[in-house]
């Protein structure tokens, strides 16, 4: 069932005002995820920007800021305890984390929770770097992106790890035999809501990877967050798809992909790439390769 604008739940589960930077994608994404799940939700928040910017009671639902790497373990304990107490029915357990908390420091804990079959919705807001600490590279930083730990200089062109070897969290989740996994984007909120609603109906672990362009970290005009998110999809840098019981399906296809340059030139972290035709061609090739590899896997 496709979610239309008039189907969107209207109850806002965030109080007005928060500590986010201007143009923050995470607040946009979190707002829609919560609306999709409704008030009977407990949020377990791994350390990251979201935990900081929702301080002082921003969420209207129970919100538990835990450690950086242990949110999946904490939700496991909550899941099992509510079962023993006979209170598990009707409660959504939502884990929210960034790419650092998910793909790097918390990967072991997430792997364990999925493998045990705990019942939760895991949403990763991926801004492709550690922004809570000011912009260091992470396991999902794209090829040649400039971060504070992959600077551009005489001996360095930014992130050296190629596009094909970026951690692909949806596929890592799928390799666990997870019942439901999907990618989504803050640029397509109706699609995001649909993915979250679907995940909530599944019993067992579910994983949603939400692409979240960060103006502060990427060097963008804060007015362009949504535009960047949509361009990421239109250029094929991000592919929106879902995996249900191992079957992959594109949820929002692109008829003709735009050149990556259109997406990159919004971001100062790629300024050196846009200025260098060789580097630009390399990035385009990496994106093409990854896109083709992913599409080849579709059912």
């Amino acid at each position, binding site marked *: 069932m496709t979610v239309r604008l008039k189907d969107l739940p209207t109850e806002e589960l965030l109080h007005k005002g928060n500590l986010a930077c201007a143009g923050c994608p995470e607040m946009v994404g979190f707002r829609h995820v919560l609306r999709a799940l409704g008030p009977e939700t407990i949020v377990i928040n791994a350390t990251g920007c979201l935990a900081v910017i929702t301080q*002082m009671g921003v969420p209207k639902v*129970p919100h538990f800021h835990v450690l950086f790497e*242990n949110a999946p373990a904490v939700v*496991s304990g909550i899941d099992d305890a509510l079962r023993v107490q006979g209170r598990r029915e009707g409660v959504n357990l939502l884990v929210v984390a960034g790419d650092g908390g998910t793909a790097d420091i918390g990967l072991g804990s997430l792997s364990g929770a999925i493998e045990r079959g705990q019942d939760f919705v895991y949403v990763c807001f991926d801004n492709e770097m550690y922004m809570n600490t000011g912009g260091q590279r992470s396991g999902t930083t794209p090829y040649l992106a400039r971060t504070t730990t992959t600077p551009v200089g005489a001996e360095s062109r930014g992130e050296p790890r190629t596009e094909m070897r970026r951690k692909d969290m949806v596929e890592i989740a799928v390799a666990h035999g997870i019942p439901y996994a999907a990618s989504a984007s803050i640029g397509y909120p109706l699609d995001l809501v649909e993915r979250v609603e679907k995940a909530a109906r599944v019993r067992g672990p579910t994983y949603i990877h939400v692409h979240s362009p960060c103006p502060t970290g990427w060097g963008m005009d804060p007015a362009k967050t949504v535009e960047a998110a949509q361009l990421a999809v239109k250029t094929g840098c991000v592919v929106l798809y879902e995996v249900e019981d191992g079957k992959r399906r594109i949820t929002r296809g692109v008829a003709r992909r735009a050149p990556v340059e259109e997406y990159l030139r919004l971001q100062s972290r790629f300024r050196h790439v846009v200025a260098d035709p060789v580097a630009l061609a390399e990035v385009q090739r990496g994106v093409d390769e990854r896109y083709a590899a992913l599409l080849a896997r579709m059912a």
Partner: protein
Amino acid sequence: MTTEFWNGNRAAAEAARQARVQVVAAYPITPQTHTVEYLSEYVAAGRLDARLVRVESEHSALSACCGASAVGARTFTASCSQGLQLMSEVLYFASGMRFPIVMAIANRTLSVPVSIWADHQDTLVNRDCGWIQLYAASVQEVYDLVLMAFRTAEDPRVHLPAMVAYDGFILSHASEPVEALPDEEIRALLPPEPPHLRPLLDPNDPKQFGEVLFPDFYPDIEYKKHRALEESLEVMGEAFEDFHSRTGRRLSPVETHGCEDAEIVLVGLGSMMQTARHAATRLRAEGTKVGVAQVRVYRPFPDRDLVEAVGGARTVLVLDRDIGYGSAGMVYPDVTRALYHAPSRPDVLNFIVGTGGKDITPKTIERCVELGRHGYRGMSVFWPDARGPAEGIAYTPGVKA
């Protein structure tokens, strides 16, 4: 009451079962592993209505307990050594969140060199993380203290997590007769669920947990946590009284033997204090008045009980089965602090013994007494069972390389 023949791990597991724990999360590590295996068997056999979270690391074990505790469930875990160190970050999280989790620890040293044998290094480096720490000297004490740990940790005046430590292999694997209480008696000792006086994670009563606190308010919260841990001594005292009236077994923060007229008092933790009693009896027969003070409650540190135990002794010998590298044993500074303002202010000497599982025999204890009997003579930390390095330097007078 029935007499059972249990090892320490079994005693800890039985006590946790009788406490009706609801969520157990743990990861295997020698010599603790049996504790969780026993609990798994109880659940499999329908003797315990609990969920086991078979986690992928100790860090996750304690984290899962935190999650369960956040919705009000009674939780239990077990660990030691490297596993406890991996949990270290979560130890502070658990006490800061005031989760009354109980953890059994079969003490084992820390690598490297690799050793699976007992010393107190693992729990002592975590002594200041806001947990109650209890040290058992026998398998009976393991059983008793796990029950007391639940009762004290969950008391609304405390609401802090608790560890019960017992020496790996020496107590975890050796079987001893244990007087076990019937399940009904435990029901009188512990309520069916932890009292829910703090806010829980509940959609009907949404609250925010684990949040930032700005510097102006930080000391207030730290002080409250510190006071709650200090005051747990009194709460534990009440629990010990209740326990005594039901079982006839008297537990105290500091267990004394022959301290009344002692000139020399041995102070320390764990099973070596049983050995110390044995040695003290022999030394007394030879005319040396030696007393033994076993510190059973180590956090909060029972200053007053220790000062009373030491009484008018002129020399106190602190046995540390651990080493605070570059300083002294880790129990030693607590004892010196407590005795500094004591009326008698005895000489206090430190003996590093039995690290990495080296046997502590009555002879080891006698050696400590021999080295320390004349009080302070310019040296305060001794290593009576360490041999010097190849160059022939002795760490301790009289110990040959």
